[in-house]
């Protein structure tokens, strides 16, 4: 049976992917959850979800033999949260070498208990909740106003760089809220949990 034209959500034991599937369902998208290499390669779009730990996620991708597959993709790819972090150069989370699509490194937010600036800014870890995004630069943000709020849940953040297409700030740290390199997109926030704004961003991705 041909799956041509479908959106592939990469299935690699990445934690809770229900919310991504539910969001696509709400948008009426035709998708499949799959770890099958040919199915991923032939998909019209690919979503790489991820919840939890970047080191664990890399391990699972390696174990599933998906790293080269991901590198080879030429259709639009969207990494969400840890799914975006594994597309960066590296993560400070257990000093993990990542796939290296985005020219950004993933660092840990300083714990407020150990950092005077973080205490002063009340910058708690995890960075959890709604925060605004700025410097929006891609078709992914078509129709999204500067300063719109989206939902974040993370303790590690991607640094700013030439691939940055949206920024956000937690305490005194400004980081990449979204990244883009060629056909690869990534959001540190969860569009699937970001209300109407998130829904619009997902729609924009599906329309690429």
């Amino acid at each position, binding site marked *: 049976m041909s799956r041509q034209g479908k959106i592939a959500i990469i299935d690699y034991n990445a934690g809770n992917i229900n*919310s991504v599937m539910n969001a696509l369902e709400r948008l009426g998208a035709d998708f499949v959850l799959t770890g099958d290499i040919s199915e991923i390669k032939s998909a019209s779009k690919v979503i790489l979800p991820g919840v939890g730990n970047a080191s664990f996620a890399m391990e699972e991708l390696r174990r599933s033999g998906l790293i080269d597959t991901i590198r080879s993709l030429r259709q639009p790819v969207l990494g969400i949260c840890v799914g975006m972090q594994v597309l960066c150069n590296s993560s400070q989370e257990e000093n993990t070498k990542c796939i290296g699509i985005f020219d950004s490194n993933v660092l840990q937010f300083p714990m407020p208990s150990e950092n005077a600036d973080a205490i002063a800014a009340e910058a708690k*870890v*995890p960075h*959890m909740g709604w925060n605004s995004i700025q410097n929006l630069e891609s078709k992914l943000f078509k129709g999204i106003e500067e300063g719109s709020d989206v939902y974040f849940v993370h*303790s590690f953040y991607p640094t700013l760089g030439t691939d940055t297409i949206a920024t956000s700030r937690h305490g005194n740290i400004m980081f990449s809220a979204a990244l883009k390199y060629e056909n690869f997109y990534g959001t540190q926030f969860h569009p699937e*949990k*970001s209300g109407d704004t998130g829904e619009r961003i997902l729609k924009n991705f599906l329309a690429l």
Partner: protein
Amino acid sequence: MVKKRIIPCLDVKDGHVVKGINFEGIKEVGDAVEMGAKYSSDGADELVYLDISASQQGRKTFTELVRQIAQRINIPFTVGGGISSLDDASRLLDNGADKISLNSAAVADPNLITSIANKYGKQFVICAIDAKKIDGVWRVTTHGGKNLTEKELFSWAKEAQERGAGEILFTSMDHDGTKNGYACNEYAHLSSMLSIPIIASGGAGSVDDIAQVLTEGKADAALAASIFHYGEIPIPELKRALMEKGIDVRYK
């Protein structure tokens, strides 16, 4: 900066939303999925659903409800009530819950926090603490305030953080249902001693109460039930009022 969050809490029994006053005198107020969708479109930042069914059948109904909520709602939601094992947590996650809230079971077996956080991440685990002040000490209670334990609020909150809780949801049993304001001093203390977000619950009666706990009380989020369920404070009005007071909230 991360916004201060407003979280309506829906107590669910056999698939319907109820709200008890001081955990007594339960009265049905509405359909759980529809109420959640309404709060979401009104600008609620998250939702909490607590299962207060005591029966097996009630638990099954709740799991099915969680699945329906996840399909319908595009903001994060937490579920709690009667979660006592890693299997319970897995079942709720598989049905689409973004976070779970542990209460009595974490007191009985603090290691439960660790095992769930290790498997699904800290962000998935809220440690809910119900406490009341007795002879000057904030004593932790379980089973909806019925059982008094030997644990003390602040040391237990600290331990919960160390064991892997991603947030603390403290309900003051002395304030809950009174509508006389939150236990602001206690939230401010929790917020300064812990590095994870603090959710305030119990005592909301007015916009000023909520504003106070988010400023003086240093809480990251304010949870309330009856003021929302009975339409006393509509969420858009609350958000606008908080913004006018200079509190950083998401306003849509």
